């Protein structure tokens, strides 16, 4: 009887969604197994952390009030009065940071294994755009508790955009919703954080995931020349999916430990009329850029130091995003050591300048 109901239910859905196709597709899908297989999992970890962000973010939205007068107090309320509100907020903050970290690892692993090469150019570009959006999520979300550190960090961060000639001032005014960081900026950032950016992100994520499924996992270039029967693989379902799930559980455990043992602090409510506290620093993932801007002299030849810094980072980011299109050697199936050297330099640069930013 029970079996018959299940069978009928399955049939009902299958007639409408064509489950069989999906099952056939999953059954035939294999994931390459090699010494670099570990990197395949970081995309999944990033996705898992994004899901946590969405879930905790929605829960926070139930109580958060995005206005200058109430933002800080509402977070305070979440942390003290709402059942498990402290946990949700702490997980949201920690998960955001881990997501940025996982996204960076994922991006660099794809870069070093040259997985961006044909036919995965679009997957790479959408991934890069999602990375930029993730940083945008971090920047906009940082202001939402409306505390002192966030307020001044946003002020400094948006000030940097203002040095760009001609378009700098309009950009700052657009970001801030006026000349200064005010309640208007908070409302704007809230909008970006919970509506505009998630909307764009979901579209990009959809394209990214569909392409990953359509094209399968990229194999390292050296394996491409091996005979098909010499290549090791594992079934996507259930072997790879279960491994993914195991890693997700480990990440969840780490997240729980971090959220409980190191609860995310709220700090002091922002006072726009108070002087900026000493040692204002951006979030760790912006630190390398912030520190570079500090080291660049005020004038380099006839160019303003800050403008030069922003220009270099913009061009570097742009070229990095377009790497599948100018890395012609890889495109031809040849080894491109320059790409590796550039990647190593970028990783070392980010690590070194981030450490310098925190130490100095």
């Amino acid at each position, binding site marked *: 009887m029970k079996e018959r109901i299940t069978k009928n239910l399955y049939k009902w859905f299958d007639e409408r969604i064509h489950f069989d196709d999906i099952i056939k597709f999953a059954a035939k899908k294999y994931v390459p197994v090699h010494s670099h297989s570990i990197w395949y999992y970081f995309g999944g970890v990033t996705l898992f952390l994004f899901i946590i962000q969405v879930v905790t973010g929605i829960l926070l939205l139930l109580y958060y009030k995005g206005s200058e007068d109430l933002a800080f107090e509402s977070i305070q309320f979440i942390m003290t009065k709402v059942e498990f509100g402290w946990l949700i907020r702490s997980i949201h903050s920690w998960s955001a940071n881990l997501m940025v970290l996982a996204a960076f690892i994922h991006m660099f692993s794809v870069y070093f294994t040259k997985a961006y090469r044909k036919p995965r150019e679009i997957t790479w570009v959408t991934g890069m755009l999602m990375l930029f959006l993730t940083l945008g999520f971090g920047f906009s979300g940082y202001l939402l508790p409306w505390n002192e550190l966030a307020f001044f960090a946003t002020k400094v961060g948006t000030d940097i955009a203002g040095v760009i000639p001609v378009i700098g001032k309009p950009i700052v005014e657009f970001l801030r919703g006026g000349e200064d960081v005010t309640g208007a900026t908070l409302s704007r950032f809230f909008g970006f954080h919970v509506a505009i950016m998630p909307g764009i992100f979901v579209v990009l994520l959809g394209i990214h995931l569909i392409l990953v499924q359509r094209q399968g996992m990229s194999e390292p270039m050296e394996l491409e020349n091996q005979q098909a029967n010499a290549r090791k693989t*594992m079934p996507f379902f259930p072997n790879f999916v*279960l491994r993914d799930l*195991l890693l997700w559980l480990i990440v969840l*455990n780490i997240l*729980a430990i971090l959220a409980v043992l190191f609860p995310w602090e709220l700090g002091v409510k922002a006072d726009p009329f108070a002087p900026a506290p000493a040692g204002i620093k951006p979030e760790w993932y912006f630190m390398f850029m912030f520190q570079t801007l500090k080291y660049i002299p005020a004038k380099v030849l006839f160019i303003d130091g800050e403008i030069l810094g922003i220009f270099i980072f913009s061009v570097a980011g742009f070229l990095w995003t377009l790497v599948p299109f100018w890395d012609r050697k890889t495109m031809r199936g040849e080894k491109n050591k320059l790409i590796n050297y550039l990647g190593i330099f970028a990783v070392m640069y980010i690590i070194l300048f981030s450490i310098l930013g925190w130490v100095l």
Partner: protein
Amino acid sequence: MVINKITLLIFMTGLLSSLLIAQKKVDQCYNCHQSNGDRQAELFKKDVHKSKGVTCADCHGGDATKADMDDGMNKNAGFIGVPKGDAKSEVCGRCHNSSTEMAKFNSTIKSGQLEDLKKSSHGKLTIKGNERIAQCTTCHNSHGIVAVKNQASPVHALNVVKTCSKCHSDKSLIKQYNPSLPTDQFENYQTSIHGKLNSKGDANTAECASCHGSHLILPAKDVKSKVYFSNLPKVCSQCHSDVSLMQKYKIPTDQFEKYSHGVHGVASLKKGDAAAPSCNDCHGNHGAAPPGLESISKVCGTCHALSADLFSSSPHKKAFDDKKIPECETCHGNHEIVTATNQLIGTTPDAVCIKCHTQSENTKGYYAAAQMRKLLDSLTTDEKDAIRLVEEAEQKGMEVSEPKFKLRDVRQARLELRTIIHAFNQEKFAEAASKGFALTSEIKAEATSAVDQYYFRRLGLILATLIISLISVALYIYIRRLDKKKT
């Protein structure tokens, strides 16, 4: 021996040169003007400057050696006639602003008065904008100037008050410069102890210059002014801490010492708190006098209004009046008022209540004091417990901004309770105390809950980690089996 000879030589040279100056300065101007019966010349006869050999020409210009009027008052010889405006003071300043010039006259008077005058309130421009508000001659006169210690001087201790009041009691004049400046200083001064003694011919008592200075007079709001709130106690103490001077008046000399250790003195002198009372806030400034027995509470009540009101309607008011004992001072002292602690009330040896209330005498107050102290101590202990609990929760990383904020209310409730003491009413006191107790128990409950929550979170984490770890291990084993099955 050689040194003695040199000293003698210097002395003789000095004496000779001054005699020469006096001898050399023939004053034909004075001779003619005096013979004509000129009033200024008559006044100048007694002038201290004349005795020092200063001639008319030294101030008015011209040649004092010439008997002929045209020669003597020749403009080519520098004759300027009567100096006008600031030139009046500049003429005085030629000598009085230069120590070398003053030394020529063997004067011991300090120089620099003109510089001081320029920096003072009186050195500002008049409304016409062509000269200073006051010149040297405004206070010292122009002819017939005598030494300050000479009783005929307008700036002698017995005359200076009237001299200052010529302008400072002139409402229409003062209004032009500072409409908010009172013009009743002279009247007030006359009512003060200082004024009364001064009018009786006591030159030792304080007059205007004793407190405000003579040439460098600055507004009381100026931090450099002698009467700036934090400088004033020191100024008063110049006389009031002088044992030999005060002996005559039979008043103590430890007021400044006591004041500087008291809560008001510490606030004013060490913390620079302009709201803290200085000597003049209790004693008055121009009308300075010790507050009378009954007016003490009114004086203290200007700041401690609520305490004063409560006391006035308390049973102690009548008792104190009947016994003729000063109100606030009996319990709190006068100059050395220290921060009131719980020990001040009650029946312990430190408490002031036992001065009048004992177990055998005035017993009702004795037991009431003991009860009030008990409540006050309990609230203080409760407050400390609440602070400790909030701090503990905060150290554990819990969000306790709300109970932390409420701690301010407890402090406020404790201060209110201390104020309510002045009503000496047990019921009112207990009611105020209950407000504080309600707050402390609320905070303690919130802080305890935060501490409990901390441990609950730790326990929850252990359980969650354990469950997730178990599922992970099970999953791992399953994956291993799955892989083996495949191989």
